[in-house]
Each structure stands twice: as structure tokens, then as C-alpha cells.
């Protein structure tokens, strides 16, 4: 047995003991995420392995369920970040390119997990070290060096040379292919890095002096032919350098702010710098400066033309102005403009929903801007020209790994609506109870994720165990767990520091569009169940909480768990819906179901018993738009807690 990700070295002596230790001590990084594994009923954390939060600390990559196309590149980066020896275990994942073939594959069941882990331990113990271990390469990992003109960012070449516009020597710049796993930079030793500040230096050789002979040190746009005072601030104008006259804006070689955190951060800097270099008129003197690096050797003002602001008398020519660097940057909430870095979180970030790519622009540790995107993407609902009803129901349920029962029920209800079929009262109650059971599991899963994110590990462990117990449990199983679940809820309500952690963050106003618990936690809100006679007969009443912040959402979810327990008890039976027999009916129908994350609406069109058209509105589609609101000007930890409090499912978001 060989391990694809073995570490270089002969398997002998002490290495055998080390390999045995590695086999015992498995640290797993789970793709797409532990939440997906739990939704499939797999108890990873309870299988004598540690689930870790960064691939750097993992030696096993566990892939659960099929890997969505949008996550493949990120998965490759994640794998590349793991230190060798590293292994891959797939549980029902199928094709996992561009990752190397799985070392062990097993079906995604509890028994499969057990046998898979046992096999994995054997493989690692036998083959952790190998003399001929190969390199792992994937397109996503290639760092491309491209050449760009410091003055004309639109000029990008693959080879060094001169800029066709101004004749300056192009400078190298690293770019990585898109789709990084959110853990900046991989580990290839590379010594000579292109320094962004060199861009800035060169970039300063930008336009020649000022227009007039005198200018205000504070307001460079004030230009006068004669000495005097600035009309804006009353300061004495200072002598500007002689130069050809052209109006210059505030250009700043922004690249000087080089923390350089990973190539993505570089990219972000480049983007910042780009608008600094955006427009500039012709400048004929540029050729004179082509190819000069740095500014050493320039001993005078004459012919230097090196500063985008008119050089103030007395300032040495090589001096790089900090005012210019900070000038165009947006102000942050505290008025101190810091270097902004763009940090990607996700798609496999431990504290965020798996598959969600959150890009935060950080100003210090305050979030200045954010962008949330689902890398999973929802595919077409109807595969091909038409599908049978059974295939369609199965496909929709498989597309939503975090809520399969609710979407299965939704698909069945919509098809029944289209075919005017009636499942009967008993079936309706069974279905309602099945959806409620999934709601309990989903909310418990959310509590586990929240516990993990906020370091409330007791909650994470307890909620995880209860979620696994509830999933797929029959009516007696639920009744057996009800006491424990209620105790957990009470404990959550009274946990110390909870209000301090979640209170008043991620507040959402009453007019912003929102769905599901997010909506009901702000005092108003709607619930698709409120119009369902079956549920009303079971005693359903809409839960509402005031506040609209993350704490209210937590409490509302707890309320809903308690209520769902009551509803299941009242329903008396749990039944996942059967695919309705539609034969050759044609027609259109729509159904709405309150999934754990909010109301989902499906409209289907049947032709001769086949589904030909379908349209789905999901709650996460609505709620993902709130990310920007809830993170704006928040401290990083609060921003992440805010995003988590929305309970997004990237699988529901339109691709």
C-alpha cells in the first residue's frame, strides 16, 4: 500500500514508530466541511480523530459527499497546504480531480467511515515515508509571474520587456490563479519576490513637477505664479519645482504599503494602486527615466520629475511622501486610515458555512468591506430536457445536503400541486413532522457551528451529539432525546457571556429583506407554516423574538427547536414523503415550505408526467445579501459571528 502524499525518506527504524504514531493520531481537515458530514449522519469528531481548523495542522483530508466543481481548485490549494505525509479519505466523493486519487475510499455511512478510517490507519502506518514521493501540482497552484508597467497597469505581458506606451521597463509581479482556499500563500520556497514598493518607487517617476511656481503644501491643487497664501487654508505657498504644465491629480504609488500577505493580498494592493495610476496625460519625459531602479544617483531636482506632487522646497528628492500614499485611501470609522488588506475567508473556513467564500477588506481588524459568494453554486434544477418526477425529487434533495428532507418534501408537494394529487391527511402530518425533525437537527447543527466558532466547545460537542441522534430518528427516538434537547436549550439561554458575545451585533432593520429565523428574530417576520392547516391543527404558533441581532436569532432558533419537539409529539408519526405517482399528468404547480433556513418556494411544470421546468427561490438567496450590512465596520470576530448567525447554506445560493 502506498500513500500518494508520503514524505520523502526511507521507511526504517524510528520512522516506523513515527508512522505508527501518525496512524494513531489522525488530524482531519474535512471538505466541504464538518457540517456537511454531520448532515449526512457521519460523526467525525466522535471517531477518534481530531477535526482541525487549518490544513496546516492536518494529516488527513476527508472528502464527504461529491465535491462541487466550484470547490475543486480550493480543495487543491488546501491539499497543497497540508504538510506531508498527508492522506486523502473519500466518503462517497467520486471524482476528486485535481486532487490525487484517494488513498482510501468508503461509502458515506457510519460503517463506511469506520472501515475507511481503519484502512487509512493501515495505509499511513505502512507508507508514511517513501523515497520516491512525488510533488503535487495542480493548475490552481501555479504562480504565474507576469510583467506589468508600473505606470500602465493595463499592460500585462508574459515576458520582460519595455512598455509599449511609455518605454519603461516592465516589472515582474506574481499572480496566482483564482480559487484559493483562503489560507494565503502556499509553501514553495521562493526567494526573490517582486516588491510592491519598487512599483511605487518607479511609479513615482510619474509626472513632472507642478504647474505654477508656487503651491500649497496642504492643497496641491492650489497653484499660483506668485508667492502668497493659500486661499483654502491660509498657509504660505511654497516654491514648486519648474516643470511642464499639466494638471495632476493625486497619484500615489500605493503599492508602498507592502505587508504582502499572500499573493491575493498583493493582488488587492495592485487593485488599489490601479486607480491611483488610472489616468494621466502624456508625459514626454518618461523615456529619460526608463529603467532606472530606485532613485539613488539623483542628486538634484533638475530633470528628476520623480514626484507626483510638486516637490516642496527643501525636501530631498528621493523622499517618498506619506501624505500621497495615504491621500486617496478611504477613511475608516475611527478616522485613522490604515493599510487595507483583503483577506479571503473560506470556502473551508472553520467558522463559516462550508462553501461560502467571504472576502473581507480589513482596516486593522475592522471590516471595511465585504463580499460573500457561494463557490458551490446551484446547478440547473432540471438536468436535460426533462426528468421523471422521481429523478427530480432525488436530484433536488441531493443538491441540498444541508436540508434534504425539506427539499424532498418541497419537490413532492410542488409536483402534487401540479398533478392535483392529494397525499391525504396522515401523510401531510408525517411530512410536517419530518420537516420539523430536520429543523431540530439543522438548528442543533447551527448551534454546534456557533459553538465551534465562538469557542463554546461544550455546546459544540453536545449539540453535535444531539444532532446526530435526532437525524433519522423515529418518533420514539425523538421523544427519548427531547429531555436532553430541552436541557441543552436551557443551558444555552443561561450561558455566561452569551449576551456579551452576541448582543447588539449583526443587527438587521425591519425593512431589509430577510427570510426564515433571521426575519422572525426582529419582531416581525413571516413563516410559511402559518398558512398550513396541518401544522395549525397540530398547534403551531409562529415564534417571534424582538431585537434583530445575533442573540435574538440564537434564542429564536432555540424556541423553534422546542416548538418543533412539541409539533412532532402532536403529529404522532414521521414519514419522509414518497414520490407521488404522476403518470402522464400535465400541469403547473407551486409549493412553499418553511425549511430550517426560511421559506423556499418551488414552481414546477409537468408535461406528460415529466418535469420540464422548475424554478426555486431559497432563503439563503435572500439572506446572503445581508452579509454586507451585518459586517460593515465590525471587528473581525464580530463580523464572522454575524455572518454565521445568518445560517447560510451556500448550496441554496444561485450560482
Amino acid at each position, binding site marked *: 500500500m502506498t500513500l500518494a502524499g508520503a514524505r520523502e525518506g526511507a521507511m526504517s527504524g524510528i520512522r516506523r514508530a513515527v508512522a505508527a504514531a501518525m496512524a494513531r493520531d489522525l488530524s482531519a481537515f474535512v471538505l466541504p466541511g464538518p457540517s456537511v458530514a454531520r448532515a449526512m449522519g457521519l460523526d467525525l469528531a466522535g471517531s477518534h480523530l481530531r477535526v482541525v481548523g487549518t490544513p496546516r495542522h492536518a494529516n488527513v483530508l476527508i472528502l464527504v459527499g461529491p465535491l462541487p466543481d466550484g470547490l475543486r481548485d480550493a480543495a487543491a490549494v488546501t491539499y497543497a497546504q497540508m504538510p506531508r505525509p498527508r492522506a486523502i479519505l473519500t466518503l462517497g466523493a467520486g471524482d476528486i480531480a485535481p486532487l490525487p486519487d484517494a488513498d482510501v475510499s468508503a461509502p458515506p455511512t457510519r460503517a463506511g467511515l469506520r472501515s475507511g478510517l481503519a484502512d487509512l490507519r493501515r495505509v499511513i502506518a505502512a507508507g508514511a515515508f517513501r523515497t520516491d514521493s512525488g510533488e503535487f501540482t495542480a493548475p490552481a497552484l501555479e504562480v504565474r509571474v507576469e510583467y506589468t508597467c508600473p505606470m500602465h497597469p493595463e499592460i500585462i505581458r508574459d515576458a520582460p520587456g519595455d512598455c509599449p506606451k511609455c518605454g519603461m521597463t516592465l516589472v515582474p509581479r506574481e499572480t496566482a490563479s483564482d480559487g484559493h482556499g483562503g489560507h*494565503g500563500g502556499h509553501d514553495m520556497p521562493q526567494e526573490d519576490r517582486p516588491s510592491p514598493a519598487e512599483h511605487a518607487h518607479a511609479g513615482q517617476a510619474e509626472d513632472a513637477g507642478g504647474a505654477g511656481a508656487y503651491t500649497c503644501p496642504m492643497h496641491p491643487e492650489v497653484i499660483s505664479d506668485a508667492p502668497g497664501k493659500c486661499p483654502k487654508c491660509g498657509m504660505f505657498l511654497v516654491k514648486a519645482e519648474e516643470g511642464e504644465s499639466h494638471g495632476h491629480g493625486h497619484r500615489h504609488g500605493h503599492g508602498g504599503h507592502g505587508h504582502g500577505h499572500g499573493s491575493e493580498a498583493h493582488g488587492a494592493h495592485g487593485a488599489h494602486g490601479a486607480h491611483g495610476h488610472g489616468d494621466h496625460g502624456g508625459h514626454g519625459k518618461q523615456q529619460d527615466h526608463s529603467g532606472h531602479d530606485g532613485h539613488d544617483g539623483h542628486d538634484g531636482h533638475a530633470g528628476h520629475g520623480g514626484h507626483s506632487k510638486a516637490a516642496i522646497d527643501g525636501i530631498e528628492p528621493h523622499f517618498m511622501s506619506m501624505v500621497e500614499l495615504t491621500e486617496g485611501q478611504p477613511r475608516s470609522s475611527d478616522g485613522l486610515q490604515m493599510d487595507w488588506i483583503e483577506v479571503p475567508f473560506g470556502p473551508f473556513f472553520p467558522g463559516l458555512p462550508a462553501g461560502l467564500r467571504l472576502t473581507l477588506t480589513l482596516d486593522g481588524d475592522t471590516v471595511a468591506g465585504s463580499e460573500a459568494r457561494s463557490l458551490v453554486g446551484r446547478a440547473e434544477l432540471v438536468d436535460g430536457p426533462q426528468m421523471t418526477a422521481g429523478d427530480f425529487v432525488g436530484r433536488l434533495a441531493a443538491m441540498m445536503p444541508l436540508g434534504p428532507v425539506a427539499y424532498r418534501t418541497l419537490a413532492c408537494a410542488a409536483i402534487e400541486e401540479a398533478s392535483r394529487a392529494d397525499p391525504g391527511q396522515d401523510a401531510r402530518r408525517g411530512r410536517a413532522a419530518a420537516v420539523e425533525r430536520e429543523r431540530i437537527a439543522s438548528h442543533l447543527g447551527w448551534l454546534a457551528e456557533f459553538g465551534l466558532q465562538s469557542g463554546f466547545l461544550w455546546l459544540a460537542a453536545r449539540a453535535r451529539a444531539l444532532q446526530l441522534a435526532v437525524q433519522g430518528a423515529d418518533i420514539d427516538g425523538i421523544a427519548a432525546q427531547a429531555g436532553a434537547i430541552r436541557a441543552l436549550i436551557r443551558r444555552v439561554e443561561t450561558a455566561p457571556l452569551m449576551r456579551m458575545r452576541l448582543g447588539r451585533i449583526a443587527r438587521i432593520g425591519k425593512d431589509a429583506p430577510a427570510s426564515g429565523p433571521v426575519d422572525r428574530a426582529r419582531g416581525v417576520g413571516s413563516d410559511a407554516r402559518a398558512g398550513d392547516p396541518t401544522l395549525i391543527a397540530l398547534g403551531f404558533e409562529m415564534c417571534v423574538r424582538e431585537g434583530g441581532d445575533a442573540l435574538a436569532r440564537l434564542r429564536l432558533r432555540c424556541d423553534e427547536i422546542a416548538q418543533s419537539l412539541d409539533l412532532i409529539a402532536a403529529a404522532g408519526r414521521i414519514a419522509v414523503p414518497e414520490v407521488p405517482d404522476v403518470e402522464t399528468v400535465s400541469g403547473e404547480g407551486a409549493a412553499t415550505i418553511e425549511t430550517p433556513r426560511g421559506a423556499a418556494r418551488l414552481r414546477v411544470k409537468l408535461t406528460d408526467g415529466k418535469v420540464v421546468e422548475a424554478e426555486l427561490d431559497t432563503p439563503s438567496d435572500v439572506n446572503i445579501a445581508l452579509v454586507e450590512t451585518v459586517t460593515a465596520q465590525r471587528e473581525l470576530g464580530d463580523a464572522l459571528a454575524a455572518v454565521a448567525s445568518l445560517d447560510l447554506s451556500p448550496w441554496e445560493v444561485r450560482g
Partner: protein
Amino acid sequence: MSILVVLLSLAAGAYALAVIERWAVHGHLSLTGPAWAALALLGRESLLARKSDRLFFELGPVLLLVAGLMAVAVIPLAPGLIITDLATGALFLNAALAYVLVALIMAGWGPNGAYAMIAGWRFLGQFIAYAMLIVMPITAVAMRAESLSTVEIVTSQEQLWNVLYQPMGFILFVVAAMGLAWLPPLDLPDATGELAGGVEAEYTGVRLAVLRLARMVIILALAGATVTFYLGGWLGPWLPPWAWSAIKILAVAAAMLSIGRYMPRIREARYLALSWKLGISLALANIFVVGVIALVVPI
């Protein structure tokens, strides 16, 4: 000789603490677990992050370990069982632990990763919160002992342990110590859910092993400091002094490790506000009360 004994017991303590941590965090008790984990960690590749500040990256974990060891040097385990009994031991402990901050900033800056860098600077903010609350309760302790020597601080508690003499100081010190050792719920610099490991995020293999060992040593040093300052050090009936020290230190360390499991992480700004507005006022009141008691009631 006593140096060797202290270092050996430190190693044993670190191992015991690792067992306790696994039990507290991952929920299963395994006596051999940490040994396997350490061995496995040593066998993994030790990656160097691209574009890292190599010097800081390498030096961070080592400095952390050195800071922890220096702090341990002034903690008495039994009469005569101490690496060095400095006249300014209580202050020296602070001085050594101040380098935890420096080490974390290095480890955060070194690997050139955003998560690690934010984590490093976060710890600086956290430091501003806990720093005064480490020093001010110690002042009150030293006032009672009329000495900064840790041995004399222990012997001053023969009549009554400081935890009863100045309970307020004890609480403040433990909270601050948990901040210093970045233990949950004050684990802002390596919050898994927020920063994917923070300062630890880019470390692998041997370097990660050093970092984790250093963390254990620091927790032990702080538990030892708590025991020395407030729980009467080696004092206790029936058992030999070293046994009392071991029991108390491990119990305090276990308590500090597991308390964070039962509550969410505190927000950075809240911790700062609480420490300065409430904590420092209480610490001043504590000093005042201790001063009055020391002058009026000779215990």
C-alpha cells in the same frame, strides 16, 4: 540538582497538562495520546511559509519557550526546590511573561499570513487589557509578604492563604493569567473559529510542536504563579510539600483549561473595557483593603 528536578517535574507537568487539555477540548481521556501526537507532529514536514520573515518565524516559538522557562525558574515547588530564588522573583515572573507578547508578535508577523498577523496584533490589544491586572494583584500579595521573593510570599501564607486573605486579587489574577496564556474564553489570538488557528495557523511539524510545548509551559508557569501567590504554594497538611505543589498546580491548570469550554469567547473590546473600567478599580480597592488589613490585623 534542584534545577534538574524542577525541569523534570516541568516536563512531567507539561505532559499531564497535555492529557488534560485533550480531555477538556476533544473530550476523550487518553494517557498515551499526547505522546503519539507529539511523535506524529515531529514526523511531519516543517513548512516555511512563502515570503516569511524567516528570523521571526523561527525565533517566535523559541522565545515563547524561553519566556515560559524563565517564568518557571522563580516558582518554588518545595522549600529549597526552586531554580533561583530571586529577591525580585514576583517581578521577574512578570518580566519573563512580558516576552510572551513579543514572541507572539514575532510568530504572528513572521509567516506573512493575514490570519497570523491579525492574531499577533490582537494579542497586543489583549495585553493592554490584562497587563495591569497581572501586576496590581501581585503588588497586594507582595505587600502582605513584605517581599518580592516568591519563597517569602509562600511562607507569608502560613497562617492564612491569600485566596482567603484577598479573594478579589485572586479572581483578578486568574482572569488576567488566562488572558496571558490566551486560554478560552480569552483565546483571541488563536481562535480556531475566527482565525483558523491564528498565530499557530502557519506552523507545522517541529515548530508547531515547540509552540505547543511552550504554551503548556506558560500555562504551568501561570498555574504555578497562582498557587504561589494565592494558594499557599507547597503548604498543606499530611502530604509532602512537593506533592502539594504538584496537586495544586495541576488542579489550577486543569481548571483554567476547562473553564472556557462552558462559555463563548469574549469580545476583544469588551475585555478591554471590563479590565480597565472594572478590573483596575477593583485591583486598586484590593490594594487598599490589603494595606488596611496588613496595618490593622496582623495575620
